[in-house]
């Protein structure tokens, strides 16, 4: 069973061997390292860039304009904030040129907290990304989705931001969620595709024959069906919300967990249907809470489904402070934890109008 980072790597392999991906690049993305999270080990078209995020994004745009299929990595989303103007250009070129030039590229970048990454390795990027029109934005919460969303991102003719939930990169697929073609045994897979320690100059991966899988951009996944409360979330918080929901199931609260998977465009139909069913909604993410993407979702829900709501809709998000501190206490107090999610669901479930 592949981990999420292995699934991403395998998707990139499918990308370069079958879908026309020509360039996979970023800081430490090429040999010998293959990415600080191993996401690009052994890939044919992976190469190292200078330490210059603006160059990386510019390079991606230029390659795309020249008809190539680039996948660029920003090593941590924390280091993408000097490129927002270029990301905006990727998002506006098709529109500004009146449909003359599209910009098909993928930018992938690890996001979020959960690894004691301190101030500059804990950032979220969903708030920022959803503020940049012209991009599609996806964020997997399982290895299977990670694989399928990457393939969809690669073949999309638009710029696609692929947010990798840092804390989930080592989680494994659930049984039944295997990728078609992956070896049943973890160790076998690892021996095939993980670079060895030490000298790697002679190493070559043996890629399994993988079935192509396309998770459509714009479609949410009902991660757990329920009737009492809707939780709208994505990435790392999906797993936390599911765990909270399981705990609450024992206490008689039946939670529906929606994994958005795509932040833009997002699956309004799925959201609407769920809110109509449960009449109570919680939105969970890790980004800072002022001008947060969850606030968009809740604002729209409130505007369009006001009379469906049996309790004030709720946002659980990151503290609105300048960073996420290193110490356990600090990180835990700064972004939603399972207990916080559980408490918020409970409060909604028991709210008496």
């Amino acid at each position, binding site marked *: 069973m592949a981990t999420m980072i292995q699934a991403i790597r395998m998707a990139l392999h499918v990308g370069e061997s079958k879908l026309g991906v020509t*360039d996979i690049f970023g800081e430490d993305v090429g040999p010998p390292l293959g990415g600080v999270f191993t996401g690009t080990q052994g890939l044919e078209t992976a190469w190292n860039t200078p330490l210059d995020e603006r160059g990386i994004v*510019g390079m991606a745009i230029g*390659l795309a304009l*020249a008809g190539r299929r*680039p996948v660029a990595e920003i090593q941590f989303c924390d280091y993408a904030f000097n490129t927002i*103007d270029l990301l905006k*250009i990727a998002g506006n070129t098709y529109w*500004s040129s009146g449909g003359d*030039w599209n910009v098909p590229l993928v930018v992938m970048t690890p996001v979020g907290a959960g690894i004691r990454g301190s101030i500059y390795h804990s950032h979220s990027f969903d708030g920022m990304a959803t503020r940049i029109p012209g991009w599609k934005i996806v964020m997997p919460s399982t290895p299977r989705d990670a694989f399928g969303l990457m393939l969809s991102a690669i073949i999309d003719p638009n710029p696609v931001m692929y947010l990798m939930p840092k804390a989930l990169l080592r989680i494994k697929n659930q049984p039944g969620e295997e990728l078609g073609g992956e070896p049943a045994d973890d160790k076998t897979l690892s021996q095939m595709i993980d670079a060895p320690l030490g000298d790697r100059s002679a190493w070559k991966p043996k890629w399994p024959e993988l079935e192509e899988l396309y998770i459509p951009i714009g479609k949410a996944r009902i991660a757990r069906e329920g009737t009492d409360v809707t939780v709208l979330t994505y990435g790392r918080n999906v797993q936390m919300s599911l765990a909270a929901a399981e705990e609450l199931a024992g206490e008689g609260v039946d939670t529906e967990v929606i994994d958005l998977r795509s932040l833009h465009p997002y699956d309004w139909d799925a959201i609407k249907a769920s809110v109509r069913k449960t009449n109570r909604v919680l939105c969970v993410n890790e980004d800072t809470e002022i001008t947060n993407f969850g606030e968009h979702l809740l604002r729209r829900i409130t505007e369009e489904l006001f009379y469906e709501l049996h309790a004030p809709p709720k946002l659980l998000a990151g503290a609105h402070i300048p960073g996420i501190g290193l110490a356990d206490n600090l990180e835990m107090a700064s972004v939603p934890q399972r207990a916080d999610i559980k408490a918020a669901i409970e409060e909604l479930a028991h709210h008496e109008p």
Partner: protein
Amino acid sequence: MSSSSPTPIRPATAGRLPAAQCLQLYDVMLRSRLLEERLITMYKQGDGYFWIGGPGEEAFNVPLGFLVDKGSGIDHDYLHLHYRSSGTLLAMGADPVDSLRQMKNVASDPYSKGRNFAGHFSVRKWNVVPVSSPIEVQFSIAIGTARAQRAGTGAKGITIVQGGDAGTAEGDFATALIWSSRKGQELPMLMIVTNNRYGISTPYAGQHGYDQISERGKAFGMPTAVVDGNDPEASYIAIQRALDYVRTERKPYLLEAMVSRLRGHSSASGANLAKDEIDCLQKFETTLEERQLMTRGQIEELRKKYTRELGEASTRVKEEAPPTPESIWEHVFADKNLVGGET
């Protein structure tokens, strides 16, 4: 209005081009100047909200347009221009009426459908990537088309990127220098700085620690040159030399052209005639007269003809339909991969 194709003949006299070619350059320089003047008139008459353009850069930009390997895809040159490039576009064969359309922001504006300011070209079929207003970002983007051309198909296509002098203070200029000169990974890219010694109101002096922008290229081991951008023949030769190098060596080159800013920065600063700048068009007219290639009468004749044509065109353009309010929603997302060859 049409344009003829370039005749790249080596000059007979050092620093001089053959007569036919001079006339050809002059023709487009004149049309380019008159186009800008027409755009300014439109602005002043309320037929557009903002003007920016290239009067004073024709002697450099027109030769550039003639020397471009024009076409679509990596076998041809990519152009990452800025907002003073009408001369280049006209030399490539653009129809001036389309610039009027962009000025009037009508729906038929082929460069942006009435969305963008004058001078913001986009011509995919000729590899002219969209001009965008933020200064210098084209230098960070150009490395991408250049990299696509590096591996090469044996064709001579390269990337040409151009910007102003003040803009070289942005990190993007350094990005282009760094990425294009990595050892063993050099990029086939001609970087052009059109130095008019101003950034809006700010003079060159006191803003730079070097006398010429081209000095910035030296640390990176790339050839550099400075050319008198008010001399179309010198410019043609300098551009040709630079292009030859980049096409053949597949390595970067930094070319600086000293040019004039004849109408100030833009309409925001009045778009009035600057009295203390060399006018390359007048200068070239004198040259043509001296060499007896044209008479004053012929020059006046041509000027009148183009002025009339542009006047008529602008009258027609004013009648064209504006974009509809709903059109704002068009082209947010592409359904097809146009740059990838889908149609």
